[in-house]
């Protein structure tokens, strides 16, 4: 499974875990994170759960910290910071 699929799958798990509902028809790249169904606490749990699965937290690794607005930006931060990436 690639990172994007892992993130989508984990997103849905956290949605269920927190008793939240998806507020958009589909998790596309332009979906605004905080309007997607998970609140900021939900995203905190998502980042922590992803850290368990992927064994890295990109937000603590960035030289210039950045907070994502859309789902696409969120995924690209994980893709970009993935230590397993072959350069």
């Amino acid at each position, binding site marked *: 499974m690639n990172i994007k699929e892992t993130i989508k799958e984990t997103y849905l798990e956290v949605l269920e875990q927190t008793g939240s509902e998806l507020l958009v028809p589909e998790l596309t790249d332009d979906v605004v994170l905080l309007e997607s169904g998970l609140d900021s*606490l939900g995203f905190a*749990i998502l980042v*922590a759960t992803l850290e368990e699965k992927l064994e890295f937290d990109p937000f603590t690794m960035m030289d210039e910290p950045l907070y994502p*607005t859309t789902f696409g930006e969120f995924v690209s931060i994980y893709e970009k910071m993935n230590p397993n990436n072959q350069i």
Partner: protein
Amino acid sequence: MNSLKKVLSNIPLDRNALMTDTISLTYGDIQKVIEKNSEIIKQIKSSNVVINGRSRFEFAKLLFLLDGEVKSILFLPQDIDASLHDRYYEEAQINFEVYLENDIIKYNFINKIENTNSSNETIWIIPTSGTTNIPKLVAHTFNSLTRTAKSDTDIGKTFRWGLVFDIYRFSGIQVFLQAMLSGSALIISEANASMSEILNNLTLHHCNALSATPSFWRKVLMSKELNELDFTIITLGGEIADENILQALKVKFSHAKILHIYASTEAGVGFSVNDAHAGFPKHYLDNGINGVSLKLSSTSTLMIKNEKQAQKYLSGNSLYEDDGFIDTGDIVEIKGERVYFLGRDSGAINVGGNKVQPEEIEHVLLNSGYVHAAFVYPKKNPMMGNIVCADVVLYDETTDAKIAKTGILQYCREKLENFKVPGIIKFVAELETTQSGKLKRS
């Protein structure tokens, strides 16, 4: 002695003062409200009054009317448990509950108690945020609260402060006073406003100065309204400001002055740090900073002493140690020339500004029917500061992990507020204990 009313005399009356999404009042408008109430205020003069859960906008106007007139004002935010009201009324010897109707003061009789308070300065009684304890009442005055506030009204005219903290709390009242003292505009969002509504309100009124928790700022940086916003002054308070959020703000708002503030209801106005890095310079500990002395307790908590001790517990219990210092309960660590905050000595976990006591969560986990032993601890998180994690030992190790997790979380959600529900649950075979058999807390 200064008061809010006296402040008004220094500010051009045509300046905007209080702005909501639908109403804007100038300082002159506030002056008129005061004049309209000049007779009726005499009826409650020198009494102890409570403002109980009124809107933030109404609260702000009431403060102008009451400060310097009544003996004390008890702030009761909407989220204070109603069952505590009588107890607080008694402790603060409240005579009247006050509110506004068409900008005229109305009051309900509460109790006729002889006033023992002989001061002629109005006492502002602010509840602490409380953890699992019942919030305590702390008495402040206009002067103690404005000790470090800037009062240059020429500079102030350029600022439009956003109020996103609760004005009934220490953090919110600081923002209110800073804005009013320097003749700035204050853009008020109400407690029930959504993030989008708050940000749209700030944009509408061209907010350029905002004080908020690190968690709020993270949400700002994740919002779709982000590019509509611009700030000259950014302050962070209420939680530990980590390097990530400070640097992210610096990147996004490169020309803004970024301050993180150390203050609390009990410790009062503390100090601020303006280099956009986490923690504070060690020389603050050695030399003090702006009338505040700092030192470490034997358990590495930060002790703070204001030159002028002003605030005190209303109950009469002492806030202070014998040497005048207050133990803040915040554990710090010195690394080189910098002092960093590690967390609370009570073990409380700060989740986006909300305090969580691990023992409470452990208790709920143990009652869930699945869990034989539980250990709850914080995990640092870039989105919320910390989240709640739990290591649990199941009664029956053969229970399907997914079923157990779903069952435990469902039970937690029924019993606990959202921010208290563990975000991560790990199933372990046993918990680490210390030699005395206690759970090992790092």
